[in-house]
């Protein structure tokens, strides 16, 4: 067996172990009130089992990383698949660091789903080994990417703690506007996460079923000298096309649940050949996510926050707030160093300018400014507690947009290879 095969097998094992660890945590929190057991002892025991499982999974994840490094000869952080798996690994590391400070293992119940989602998201992208583009072949790029991911990982842990805090303090009884609004938004954060799960379910579901449809689109470009270039591009959908690309012809279409052709075509301003496919993926994610959410609501017969909240009552909201702030405070210098300073050093060496206002660079700056606003706001009274938890949640959204959104929506110099 060669290194690459070894690494991918280990990776699968790590993924399932992460899931197992999460289930242990869920038992730790949810099984407290099961009959004839001592609640405190139960939580501590299952929390410990969960933590050990998570550590073992993480060690396997490390094995994956180094085996792949050895197998392909360069550090695996150069395409979307590799970067996302690295980010998940870094989040686990940040979680372990924060755990060592605060010994609050239940944080794992929120950090692990994040890791699992990101690992699954990474697997959406092609995992095949690709050779390096010369511009990416720099030690500084590797340092930059890994340090930036580490900083972001601490922000992720800050996000997990902040979300726990929000659910912990949400008032399920309050009838006035403020109470309703805070309930709604907290529930909405969970819905947003379920939509991402919906994305994963639909991608892997249809991939497993081998679904494929394809379209061709002709684009006409008029160059400066007046010559007309027309180009025919073909796109392959792996989800049943609800939306066809703008101005396209169907090449191949597998019928799905009686759907014989796309329901509509992408609007004209979404004229890129991949824009229609991306819109289609978003629609499927929303559909699947909402179905999942509906099923969960049917099972629980109450809002999800009302399901989770009772299990968090043993944890102090102030502790959660402290953990969230501390994780961000640890991550901020690391992020500054990795995402800005090392990025500037690399850009200076590779692109001959330390800063070029490339969208990815700008969004790293936006993330940094956002977190520095968060830190400054916390210096003033009245901005601690729920408000600062919301900022930690929004901050992580900005991070995710920088990592994923910019590549999907705005393409720049940085676009990673293998973005689907």
């Amino acid at each position: 067996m060669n290194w690459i095969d070894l690494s991918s097998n280990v990776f699968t094992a790590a993924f399932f172990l992460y899931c197992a660890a999460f289930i242990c945590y869920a038992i730790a929190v949810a099984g407290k009130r099961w009959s004839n057991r001592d609640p405190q002892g139960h939580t501590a025991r299952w929390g410990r089992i969960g933590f050990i499982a998570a550590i073992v999974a993480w060690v396997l994840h490390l094995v994956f990383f180094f085996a792949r490094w050895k197998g392909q000869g360069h550090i695996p952080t150069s395409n979307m698949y590799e970067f996302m798996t690295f980010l998940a690994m870094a989040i686990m590391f940040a979680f372990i660091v924060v755990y060592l400070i605060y010994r609050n293992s239940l944080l794992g119940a929120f950090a692990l789903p994040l890791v699992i989602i990101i690992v699954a998201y990474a697997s959406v992208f092609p995992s095949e080994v690709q050779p390096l583009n010369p511009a990416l072949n720099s030690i500084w790029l590797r340092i930059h990417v890994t340090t930036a991911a580490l900083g972001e990982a601490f922000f992720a842990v800050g996000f997990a703690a902040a979300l726990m805090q929000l659910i912990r303090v949400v008032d399920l009884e309050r009838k006035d506007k403020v109470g309703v609004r805070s309930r709604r938004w907290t529930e909405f954060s969970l819905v947003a996460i379920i939509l991402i799960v919906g994305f994963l379910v639909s991608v892997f579901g249809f991939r497993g079923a081998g679904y494929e449809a394809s379209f061709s689109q002709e684009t006409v470009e008029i160059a400066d000298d007046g010559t007309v270039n027309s180009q025919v591009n073909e796109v392959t959908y792996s989800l049943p096309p609800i939306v066809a690309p703008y101005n396209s012809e169907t090449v191949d279409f597998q019928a799905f649940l009686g759907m014989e052709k796309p329901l509509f075509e992408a609007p004209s301003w979404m004229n890129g050949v991949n824009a229609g496919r991306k819109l289609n993926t978003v629609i499927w994610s929303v559909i699947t996510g909402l179905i999942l959410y509906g099923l969960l609501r049917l099972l629980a017969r109450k809002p999800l926050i009302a399901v989770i909240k009772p299990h968090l009552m043993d944890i102090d909201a102030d502790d959660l707030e402290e953990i969230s702030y501390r994780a961000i405070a640890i991550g901020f210098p690391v992020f500054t160093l990795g995402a800005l300073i090392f990025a500037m050093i690399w850009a200076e060496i590779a692109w001959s300018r330390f800063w070029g206002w490339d969208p990815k660079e700008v969004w790293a700056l936006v993330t940094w400014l956002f977190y520095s606003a968060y830190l400054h706001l916390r210096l003033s009274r009245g901005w601690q507690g729920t408000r600062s938890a919301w900022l930690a949640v929004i901050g992580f959204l900005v991070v995710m947009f920088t990592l994923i959104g910019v590549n999907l929506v705005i393409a720049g110099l940085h676009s990673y290879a293998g973005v689907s």
Partner: protein
Amino acid sequence: MLIQNTKCECGHQNPVGTVLCESCGKPLFEEAAGAEDAPLEMRYDGVARRSQKQNPHLIDRVWNFFSSVKIAIYLIILTLLGAALGTIFQQESTFINMTTDEEFAAYYKETYGTAGVIYHALGLSHTYESWWFRGLLVMIGASLVICSLDRVLPLYRALNKQQIRKHLQFITRQQVTYSGEVAGDETAWVESFKKQLKRRGYRVHQDGTALLAEKNRFSRWGPYINHIGLILFLLAVLGRSVPAWHMDQYLALYEGETRQIPDTNYYLKNDDFTLELYDESELASNQKGKAVPKLFETKATMYECIEACNDPTRDPVLKQVEQHPIQVNSPLSHGDLKIYQNSYQARVRFISVNVTLTDTVTGKAYGTFALRADNPERVYEVGPYTLRLNDYFPDFGLDSESRPMTKTRDPNNPAFAFTITGPDLLKDGETYLYFPMPNEESKAYQAILNDYYVKNGQSSGKFAFKVENAMSGGKMVNVTFSEYTTFLNIRKDKAMPYIWVGAAISMIGLIMGFYWQHRRVWLRIDGGTLSLGAHTNKNSYGLRADVAWALARTGIEVPPKSLDNRRNLR
């Protein structure tokens, strides 16, 4: 604002704006009812700052504006929003082939429709060069300077002269508090508590039964050092707009070419360009069959002109100063000039040919000479003959009146017109036209013209130009070509050292401020009752752990959480 009595009951005269007495720490303001026991606002230890001056003048108002953290947050958020807006559509600066505003306007309209028109009209298409964005950066800079000055001195004063015995209210209203009875000898207990805190790295000062323990005070300077770094960084960024500090040019060089770097005394030569592709077996499945570059490199030599540099009548005298294989991640640098690999183009370009002058009749070779496409020599001595270059057309063509001319300066179809003199030749010399790499059309033209010279009595037709063994073993010999033209980016940026120094200072400040925390513990024993208060600028959790740890070791077991004064109030 009320005229406040700033003299404390302990006798200390405080400046206007003081919140907690500089000496004993007693709160100087009467608190609103119900808040008498609330934790104190310990920011800057409650000392007065310049921005809290009464009766502000204009300068004070400006000062107050920029020293406010609230304003700083607004500035940061506005900058953040502005930067984000600039990424919605492509920025103007990314289009190399457009320059005028009309062109841009048309482009945005065509590409993005109405949204593009609005985007362009608002100036968002050049956000990062706009006056308002630059203005925000300048304002952040001003805010950083003023804000830091406003706070750093008072904070320094407050931390530098701390009294050990504090007012009781000051102690009991800290974020971390404990109070209880001390059994036994008070001084002995204080001594042992002191020893425990020392074990945790505190520096302890004692005044009878009062105690002040402190650690990591230096971390308080972290944010200010960070801000100084940011100021330097911003200044360096502004400094880049000084023209003499900055240069950014492109140079295209084919293999073997030497050119002057404009506006400098340096010359650059492309000795060789190599392109390495990935092997088919190394490629991922979606890349098979494509040419994926693995490495491209320009072997370059840099020269400095040491003589006859600006003399058009003489060739400059060059001295080699630097040699480096330039790759994407490995520029050549000399002094503050840096030369980067930008891109390359596959373009065959004729460099030189070794021509043999032969006799058309006997086939005898008289000799061989090298003919260069660039700056060919004017005179060649070949055997007994002298060849004088009369005319050179690098890219031969005919003008509208069918006269020879050159279409471009690139040697795409070079033609050389010689006059040959020597023994047994026509008196005025003989005229020949030679195409080293003729296409069909040029070949015909060469034949026609050389025939015409013979008919016209300008030539005897004695000579033929030949390239011997042009191909040998599948390789070109006697002919040299450049296969690639390399594009190099030449940069000078005198602000860079300041940028890096600013970033480094900023990082040091961040690390100081975030990975260490300033912790202080005050205590006093009054008639057997211990009152303990402790403060930290962040990580209250760690402070509580410290205090509980030291208390436990002196016989007082308390859970760390119970020390939290803020929590107990909620």
